[in-house]
């Protein structure tokens, strides 16, 4: 479980995040949603330690990220898997080498054991027969799946996904969503997904935080999101024609 308590973050005079309180549960797909520029990426980068909060705290199963020294942070990072928006696969490595990369650093397994684990992770994300391809030879959807396999390589307790569907067609997006959701449940991972994709929210959003102007304007789940009274969230949802039609059809 990850808890965010009274988090503030700004750049110069501009306050981007203002008094954020949130809880991201284990075994759930936790979503941070909001318009572009609302502060959701800044929140995600604070959560994974790429930015330092100005005030407030982030607790990983009770341990404060802010208070951790570099050594403990490194240990924590070995329990974190991150899927970046552009997949961030290493250009210099093949698919299998990408997945084995964290194992090379943090395990003393034999090459055969690492390869076996990498193949298991790749099989989980339905990538078979592409072990020796380089990232540039893969489609966007395949790159995302390899990115997920790499994030799972060390059996992380926490998985962060930054806009996992960006640049993908609707069919592949749904496959990626289902995959993330299934893996979250199967391995009991605390997954935090940063997205503005309505389909994802309605498909797999177990716990949703809507950020507006740097603060959490609404919390709920995929079942309650369409019943919201929050005006800014309604405006955000109704920008999507499908969701608007559903809401109008249901008289909301």
């Amino acid at each position, binding site marked *: 479980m990850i808890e965010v308590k009274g988090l503030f973050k700004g750049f110069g005079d501009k306050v981007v995040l203002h008094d954020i309180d949130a809880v991201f549960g284990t075994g759930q797909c936790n979503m941070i949603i909001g318009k572009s520029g609302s502060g959701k990426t800044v929140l995600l980068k604070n959560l994974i330690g790429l930015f330092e909060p100005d005030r407030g705290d982030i607790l990983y199963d009770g341990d404060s990220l802010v208070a951790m020294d570099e050594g403990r*942070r490194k240990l*924590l990072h070995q329990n974190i898997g991150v899927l*970046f*928006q*552009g997949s961030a696969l*290493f*250009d210099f490595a093949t698919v299998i080498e990408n997945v084995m990369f964290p194992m*090379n*650093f*943090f395990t003393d397994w034999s090459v055969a054991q690492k390869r076996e684990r990498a193949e298991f992770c790749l099989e989980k994300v339905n990538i078979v027969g592409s072990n020796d391809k380089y990232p540039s030879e893969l489609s966007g959807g395949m790159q995302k799946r390899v990115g997920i396999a790499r994030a799972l390589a060390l059996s992380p307790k926490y998985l962060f996904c930054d806009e996992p569907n960006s640049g993908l067609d609707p069919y592949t997006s749904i496959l990626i969503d289902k995959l993330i959701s299934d893996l979250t449940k199967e391995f009991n991972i605390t997954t935090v997904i940063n997205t503005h994709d309505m389909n994802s929210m309605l498909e797999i959003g177990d716990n949703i935080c809507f950020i507006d102007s740097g603060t959490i304007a609404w919390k709920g789940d995929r079942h309650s999101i369409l019943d919201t009274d929050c005006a800014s969230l309604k405006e955000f949802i109704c920008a999507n024609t499908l969701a608007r039609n559903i809401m109008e059809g249901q008289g909301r």
Partner: protein
Amino acid sequence: MIKTAIEKVGEYFLFLRKVFSRPENARLYWKQFILETDKLIISSILIVAVISIFIGGVLAIQTASNLENPFIDKMYVGYMVRESLILEFCSTMVALILAGKMGSNIASELGSMRITEQIDAMDMMGVNSAAFLVQPKIIAATLLSPLLMMLSFILGLIGGYIVVDFTGIIRTASYIEGIKYSFNGFYIVYSCFKTALFCFLISSISSFEGYYAGGGSLGVGRSSTRAIVAASILILMFDLIVTEVMLY
């Protein structure tokens, strides 16, 4: 502007501290060192060889055309070619060429990795990305570049010989005699040291610029340009300092 420059120098030294921290896995760093040796040193052999042969030839012609006085022995052409090559060309000129080739390679590679979040991905795994990506580059460039200098020196002398032999501006025997005349072995040490220092500057500055690149592909281009300009200026500055310290 002075404040910005001081801040930049401070950031550079903090970056170096991060780069030279203890490797997480020495075997992986060794593998990376071999790859970087191939990319930075072995791939530079051709350009260094071609330039050295031609410059050796040009130096022979220029020196011969300036030594037309019949009272000066023609063997001094060989002597002057050797001294010019070892004292300045093989270290400073080769370093300036490598600043372009090696510097742009390093800065653009790391810059691209930065803007595509590959460096962030490494950091998020708990890997010291600066050490893993940069340390092998700096060590390969610094330790092995003197070999390029030696290669350049030998090929420069051969280039001079070829021109002398083909054009007949002086007798080849005189050229060979000049090459052997009054040789100071310390110049080899001096030149090797300069080359290693210059390649340390090239690799560390271009790594620093690339590692902290921002602003998309244009930013990568800008960081690459900044790296080459800064490395070239510092090479010339340190050339003066090292020459003053080691030769006087």
